[in-house]
């Protein structure tokens, strides 16, 4: 019974004179190899060379600080709620007197962890954030030997005061304008009516 048309009939045909010389076949193969010398090299020699990434590339997260250097995150939990992979966990704490320069609002994230093995880099956390605190950057998550090392805490996620991470590409005017378009579902403006009710 023939299932597909791809089956080949095997025969014990004797090689012809030309074929038994092998030389034309070898030359043909060498020609193909040699032609590649003149082609553009597709290899990127990472890490000396890096691939050019799109402006909206979604890589390793950053927890931003504000202009004064205080952490923007207030641990509202919307990123963790939006996360489809359930990669984000956090613990809240109340800001004490004298910590105003460290944390922007009266509540802050004492522990903030992202499991980079769970994360699918969809960017929903960034979209959910009401405080412009979390952003995905064009950095890449490092390789590690242990699974535990992929759980990134605040030490790795919060940007250093002297080494700010530029996310201006993700905060462009176009993005801001885009967020205002009511036609797009996640930007939807509920103008005076309930979602499930038709009003005449």
């Amino acid at each position, binding site marked *: 019974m023939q299932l597909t048309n791809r089956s080949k009939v095997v025969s014990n045909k004797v090689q012809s004179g030309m074929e038994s010389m092998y030389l034309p076949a070898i030359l043909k193969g060498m020609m193909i190899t040699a032609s590649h010398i003149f082609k553009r090299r597709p290899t990127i020699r990472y890490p000396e060379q890096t691939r050019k990434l799109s402006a909206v590339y979604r890589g390793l997260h950053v927890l931003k600080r504000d202009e004064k250097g205080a952490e923007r995150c*207030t*641990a*509202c*939990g*919307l990123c*963790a*709620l939006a996360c489809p992979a*359930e990669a984000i966990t956090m613990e*809240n*704490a*109340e800001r004490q007197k004298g910590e105003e320069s460290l944390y922007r*609002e*009266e*509540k802050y994230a004492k522990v903030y962890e992202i499991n980079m093995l769970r994360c699918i880099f969809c960017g929903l956390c960034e979209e959910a954030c*009401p*405080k412009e605190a979390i952003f995905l950057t064009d950095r890449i998550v490092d390789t590690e030997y242990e699974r535990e090392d992929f759980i990134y805490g605040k030490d790795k996620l919060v940007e250093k005061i002297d080494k700010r991470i530029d996310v201006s590409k993700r905060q462009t005017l176009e993005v801001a304008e885009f967020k205002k378009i009511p036609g797009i579902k996640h930007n939807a*403006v*509920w*103008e*005076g*009516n*309930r*979602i499930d*009710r038709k*009003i*005449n």
Partner: protein
Amino acid sequence: MKVTIDGIEIDVPKGTTILQAARMIGPEVAPPAMCYYTKLKTSGGYCRTCIVKVTAGSTANPTPMPKPVASCRTEVMDGMVVQNFTSPEIIEARKGVVEFLLINHPLDCPVCDQAGECKLQDLGFENGSSKTRYEFKRREYEMIDIGDKIKLHMTRCILCYRCVKTAEQITDGRVHGVMHRGDASEISTYIEKIVDNDFSGNVIDVCPVGALTDKTFRFKQRVWFTKPVDAHRNCEKCCGKTRVWLKGEEVVRVTARKDQWDEVEEFICNTCRYDHKKKSDWVIEGPSPIHRSSVISQNHYQHLNELKTRVLKEQKALGFIPFDKRP
């Protein structure tokens, strides 16, 4: 008495208010209410979110009422015709009411512990505009400490008077009221008198916003990361029937049970609320019914169980025999 609300007719006893009649029909016609509370006498009439249009006063006198009326304070008449969600005027007027309620609200939901179970959030989402037109500085207050159990955030208050009525009617000897008038009104405990009555904690549950929150739960968890279960214990002061909010094995908060109108079923005492924060203190009955549109039911997949029960019920009604039960 026959009353028609949004085209649905219902028979109600004399003395029923429009809001109660609408609630009898169901949530599809019931107007939202921020200040009215079934279990508190003389509540209602402050917030104006429950306004409805009365297109016919009664069978005897079918003239429409000239202005929108507060449904929580208006009793039904025989043959009354009421429009709520079917009236564009009411939708527009309610939007204005919401805008007024939000004028001085700080919108600090990311910090507020009430976020996720806040009626003002729901109201704003369903009836409000996504933008504010208010350009001035919002009203601010000096933080008042009203004890180690209850946290008062006066900036978030919408002056619904529910807590005042609770203090008046549930607890004996009121040490809590509203001072000053109009824009300057503020909830106070009469010069820092600590609310130390056994039932004072109920003001947390009746508060529709985050103005009165549980200090023992302050910044512990966001509500949608906790799991509510109905539980009870033997309590000599109150019914002992509560809702216990779990995070893992830890009891993070104890509240009273609430019905579908977000009203407390039975008031609970402070001992149950604050002093029993161990899972072993409680007999757990099962997961609390949380509406699937609520953020609290997110990632809990409880609605799948509900769906399963419903499908099985419908299958049974149709006479469908499950595959494993077939001969």
